[in-house]
C-alpha cells in the first residue's frame, strides 16, 4: 500500500504546503468541470451532473451548520423548500394579487406585469428575474435560518436537533396546506426559467450545468474562506467546547445564529437553482427523508470536511441517478443467470433510503469522522525536533500582552463585594469581599469544596451571583455574559483543562485572540488587506505566545491538542489565556499534575507575567509554591473568607490550619 502511494507520488504531494496544493488543484478541477460536458458528449450525463450540483450545494450548506458549528440540524430541507418556493412563487403565476400603485415600480423594473382581464379587477402577474432572486432567496433563507435557530440557542445537541426537525416538518405541511400560496400538494408549475442577456435557459441541461458549477465553486470558495477565518475558528470552538469558547470571548448567540443563517442561505440557493431547472416545486420534495439525505452526505463525507462533503454529495447524487440503475441491471442479469425470479424483480432504487439508513449506522459505529475527514495540516516532527531537549523560554517580553496602564500599579483593579451564591440551599459563596490591586498576585486557597472554583466562575460569568457586586476598573461585570467579561479584560484557565480538542495548538491560540480581532463574515470571505494584516499579526503574536514555553509547543503548532502530553496541554491553555490580553488572569490549579521541575518553571512564568503588569489570581494546592510567589493569600472555607494576608501570616493562622486539618475533637 505504501509502495503504491510512493510510486504515485502521494508522499511528495503531501509534503507540499496546503496553499501550493490548492494552487495546483483549483485550476485543474475548474478545468475539468468546464470541460466535462465536452468530454462526456452525452446530454444525459450533463443533466445528471447539473442535478448533482444541487446536492452539493445542500451538503455544503449543512456542513456549515453541522460540520463547522456542530449544530445538528435535522430539518435542513426547510431551507431548501423556502429557497425553492420563494423563487417558484415569484416566477410563476401562482400569486395574483390585485393591482395597486404599490406594484408600479416593480412593473417598471420588469419584474411584474399588469394583467388586464375584461370584467375583472386588474391583477399582478409575477415574473421576477432569476438572478436577483438568487440573492433575495439567500437573504430570505438566512432570515428563516435565524428564526428557526433562535429557539435552539440554549438547548443541548439532541434537543436542538429535535426542534430543528420540528421546523423542518412544519414547512412542507404549510406548503401542502396553504394552497393559496403554494398550490398545495399539486405543487407549483410553470415556473419561468432563467434568462441571461436574452438567452433563455429553457430545458437544455447545459446552461444549468455551468450555472450550477459556478454556484458550487462559489460555495466551496466561501466555505474554505470561512473555515480558515476568525469566524470559522469561532464556530469550531463552539463545536468543540461551547463553555470554553465563551471563556475565550466567543459570543455563542451571535455565531450560532450566523451559522444557521449562512447554512440556510446556501440551502436556499440550492432550492432556487433546483426549482429553476425543474420548473416545478411540490411539497414532497422537501420532507424529512430529504433532510436525512443531506445529513447522510455530510456524515459520509466527514463533518466539517469541505472536500469530503462535496465528494459524498456527488456520490449520493450519482447513486440515485446512475449507480443504482446500473447495479439493478447487474442484479437482474445475475438473476437470469441463477434463475432467481426474485432477483430479476429487484429495483434497487427503491432501497435508496435503506442504503441511507445503513450508511448512517455504519458510519456512526465505525467511522464517525467520515470517509474523507478534513485535512489536518499535521507536520511530522523532524528527528531533531523529536530528540531536542525541551528548553525553557527566554524572558517573556510580549509587549502586546502588557495591559494598558490606567492609573498605575497599586490601584484597585478587581473589587468583589458581598458576593453570594447558593446551590440547592448550600452556600458556595457566602458574603465574599475581596479587592485585588493592579499588578498583584493573589492566591486563593482552601480545602476541597471551599468555593474557590465557584469564585472564579462567578468572576468570569459562568454563573450569576445571587447577591453582591464584582467591579473591574470600576465597571460592574457581575452577571454579565462570559464573552463580554473576556473583552473587558478577564481571562482564565480551567481546573480540568478545557481545550478545543480537535483543533491544533495554533488554532487554540488564535481562538484566544478572538476578542481582540475584528474580522467578521464579509472580512472572512473577501479578505481585504486589513483582514490579511490582522490575521498575519494574529499568527505572529500566537507564535510569540507559544515561544514563552521554549521549544516545547513550537514543533507541535499544527498538532491537534488531544494528542499532547498533559503538561503541554496545560501550557497551551495558559498561552491561550494570555492571547486574550487580559488585565486580570485567573489560573485554576495550573500546576496540577506537573512535576517539581515543571512547577518551578511555571512559577517563573507566572512571575514574568506579573512583570508585564498582568494581575494574577491563582488557585493552587501546592502550598509551598503559593507561599513563595504570592503577594497576598486569601483562604476560603465553606464559601466564607476566613483569612487574608501575607503568606507567612496566613500559614500559621489557627483557623487556616483547622480548615485544612479539621477541628480537634472534643474530649470524648
Amino acid at each position: 500500500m505504501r509502495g503504491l502511494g510512493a510510486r504515485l507520488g502521494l508522499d511528495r504531494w503531501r509534503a507540499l504546503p496546503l496553499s501550493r496544493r490548492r494552487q495546483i488543484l483549483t485550476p485543474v478541477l475548474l478545468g475539468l468541470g468546464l470541460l466535462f460536458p465536452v468530454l462526456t458528449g452525452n446530454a444525459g450525463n450533463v443533466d445528471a451532473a447539473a442535478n448533482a450540483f444541487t446536492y452539493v450545494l445542500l451538503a455544503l450548506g449543512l456542513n456549515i451548520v453541522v460540520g463547522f458549528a456542530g449544530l445538528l440540524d435535522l430539518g435542513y430541507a426547510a431551507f431548501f423548500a423556502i429557497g425553492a418556493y420563494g423563487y417558484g412563487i415569484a416566477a410563476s403565476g401562482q400569486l395574483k394579487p390585485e393591482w395597486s400603485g404599490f406594484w408600479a415600480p416593480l412593473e417598471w423594473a420588469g419584474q411584474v406585469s399588469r394583467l388586464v382581464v375584461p370584467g375583472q379587477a386588474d391583477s399582478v402577474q409575477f415574473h421576477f428575474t432569476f438572478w436577483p432572486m438568487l440573492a433575495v432567496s439567500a437573504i430570505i433563507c438566512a432570515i428563516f435560518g435565524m428564526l428557526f435557530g433562535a429557539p435552539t440557542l440554549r438547548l443541548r445537541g439532541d434537543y436542538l436537533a429535535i426542534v430543528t426537525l420540528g421546523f423542518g416538518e412544519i414547512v412542507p405541511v404549510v406548503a401542502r396546506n396553504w394552497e393559496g400560496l403554494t398550490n398545495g400538494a399539486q405543487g407549483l408549475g410553470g415556473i419561468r426559467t432563467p434568462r441571461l442577456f436574452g438567452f433563455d435557459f429553457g430545458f437544455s441541461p447545459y446552461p444549468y450545468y455551468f450555472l450550477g458549477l459556478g454556484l458550487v465553486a462559489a460555495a466551496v470558495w466561501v466555505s474554505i474562506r470561512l473555515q480558515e477565518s476568525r469566524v470559522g475558528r469561532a464556530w469550531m470552538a463552539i463545536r468543540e467546547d461551547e463553555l470554553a469558547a465563551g471563556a475565550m470571548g466567543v459570543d455563542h448567540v451571535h455565531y450560532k445564529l450566523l451559522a444557521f443563517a449562512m447554512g440556510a442561505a446556501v440551502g436556499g440557493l440550492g432550492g432556487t437553482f433546483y426549482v429553476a431547472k425543474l420548473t416545478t416545486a411540490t411539497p414532497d420534495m422537501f420532507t424529512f427523508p430529504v433532510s436525512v439525505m443531506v445529513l447522510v452526505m455530510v456524515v459520509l463525507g466527514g463533518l466539517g470536511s469541505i472536500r469530503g462533503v462535496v465528494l459524498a454529495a456527488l456520490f449520493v447524487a450519482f447513486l440515485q441517478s446512475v449507480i443504482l440503475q446500473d447495479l439493478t441491471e447487474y442484479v437482474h442479469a445475475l438473476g437470469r443467470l441463477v434463475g432467481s425470479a426474485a432477483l430479476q424483480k429487484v429495483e434497487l432504487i427503491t432501497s435508496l433510503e435503506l442504503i441511507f439508513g445503513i450508511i448512517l449506522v455504519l458510519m456512526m459505529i465505525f467511522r464517525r469522522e467520515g470517509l474523507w475527514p478534513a485535512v489536518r495540516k499535521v507536520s511530522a516532527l523532524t528527528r531533531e525536533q523529536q530528540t531536542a531537549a525541551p528548553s525553557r523560554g527566554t524572558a517573556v517580553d510580549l509587549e502586546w500582552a502588557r495591559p494598558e496602564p490606567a492609573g498605575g500599579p497599586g490601584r484597585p483593579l478587581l473589587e468583589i463585594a458581598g458576593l453570594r451564591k447558593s446551590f440547592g440551599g448550600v452556600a458556595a459563596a457566602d458574603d465574599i469581599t475581596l479587592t485585588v490591586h493592579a499588578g498583584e498576585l493573589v492566591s486563593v486557597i482552601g480545602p476541597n469544596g471551599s468555593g474557590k472554583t465557584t469564585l472564579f466562575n462567578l468572576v468570569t460569568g459562568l454563573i450569576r451571583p445571587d447577591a453582591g457586586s464584582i467591579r473591574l476598573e470600576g465597571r460592574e461585570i457581575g452577571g454579565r455574559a462570559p464573552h463580554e467579561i473576556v473583552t473587558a479584560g478577564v481571562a482564565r484557565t480551567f481546573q480540568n483543562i478545557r481545550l478545543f480538542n480537535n483543533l491544533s495548538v495554533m488554532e487554540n491560540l488564535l481562538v484566544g485572540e478572538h476578542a481582540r480581532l475584528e474580522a467578521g463574515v464579509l472580512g472572512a470571505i473577501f479578505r481585504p488587506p486589513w483582514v490579511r494584516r490582522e490575521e498575519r499579526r494574529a499568527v505572529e503574536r500566537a507564535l510569540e505566545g507559544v515561544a514563552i514555553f521554549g521549544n516545547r509547543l513550537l514543533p507541535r503548532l499544527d498538532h491537534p491538542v488531544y494528542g499532547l502530553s498533559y503538561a503541554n496541554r496545560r501550557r497551551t491553555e495558559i498561552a491561550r489565556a494570555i492571547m486574550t490580553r487580559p488585565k486580570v488572569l485567573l489560573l485554576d490549579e495550573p500546576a496540577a499534575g506537573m512535576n517539581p521541575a515543571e512547577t518551578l518553571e511555571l512559577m517563573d512564568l507566572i512571575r514574568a507575567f506579573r512583570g508585564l503588569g498582568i494581575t494574577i489570581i491563582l488557585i493552587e494546592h501546592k502550598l509551598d509554591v503559593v507561599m513563595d510567589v504570592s503577594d497576598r493569600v486569601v483562604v476560603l472555607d465553606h464559601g466564607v473568607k476566613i483569612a487574608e494576608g501575607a503568606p507567612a501570616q496566613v500559614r500559621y493562622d489557627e483557623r487556616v490550619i483547622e480548615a485544612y486539618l479539621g477541628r480537634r475533637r472534643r474530649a470524648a
Partner: protein
Amino acid sequence: MRTPGGVLLDFRDVHTHYGALHVLKGVSYEIREGEIVSLLGGNASGKSTTMKTVLGLVRPSEGTISFRGQPIHELRTSEIVKRGIAPVPEGRRVFPRMSILENLEMGRYTRRSEPGWDEDLERVFGLFPVLRDRRHQLAGTMSGGEQQMLAIGRALMTRPALLCMDEPSMGLAPRLVEEVFDIIREINAQGTTVFVIEQNVNMALSIAHRGYVLQMGEVVLTGSAAELLESPLIQKAYLGSGA
C-alpha cells in the same frame, strides 16, 4: 476465610491514569480485619480516585487489588460488591426520587434473594432512628446529614465485610461530622471493618486505628493514629513546609 486480624484488602503498587494525567503513582496499603483505617490527603492527592479504583469504576493501569486474597481489580463493580465491599460514595449519591426504604432495598440488592430483610433493616434503624421515622420520605428532600446517614445505612444493608467511606465529612456542619464519626466507631465495634477516605485529619484519626497519608498520588506517611496525630509531618504534608 475469616482470619481475625488477617488482611482483608490489599492494595498493592497501584497506578492509575486519567487521560494523560498520572493520578496514583504506585500506592500501596492494606486493611486488616476489624480495623478502622483512614486514607488521608488534601486536594489533588488522588484519594478520591482510590475508592473508585477499589470498586472497579476505574481500572488500575498497573498494580493489583486483592480482597481476602482474591484479586478483584479486574472484576465488574457488581461482582466486587457481592464479595463484601460496600461503598458510601463521595457526596452520598442516594437515589433522590426513591424513598428511604427503597434506597435501603437497593443497598441490599446483592442479597435480595437471601432472608433476613427485617433484621438488616432493624439494625440500620437502630443506628439511625431518624431513618425509621421518615422511612417513606423521598431521599432527595432530606438534609445533607440525613442523606449521609441513609448512605451509610444503605451500605450496611449488605452486611459487608468492608465498609468503604469516601469523604463522609464533606459538606456537613462540624457537629454532624462528630455524630457521623461516632456512628462509624459504633459500626466498627459491631464487627465491620471500615476504610475511611478523608480530608479532615483530626476527625478521621480520632477514630481510626491506623492511617496513610497521600500526597500527589503517593503515600508519604503511615503509622498508627496516635503516631500520625503527634507527627509534625502531617501539617507539613497538608500545608507545605515552612519558608
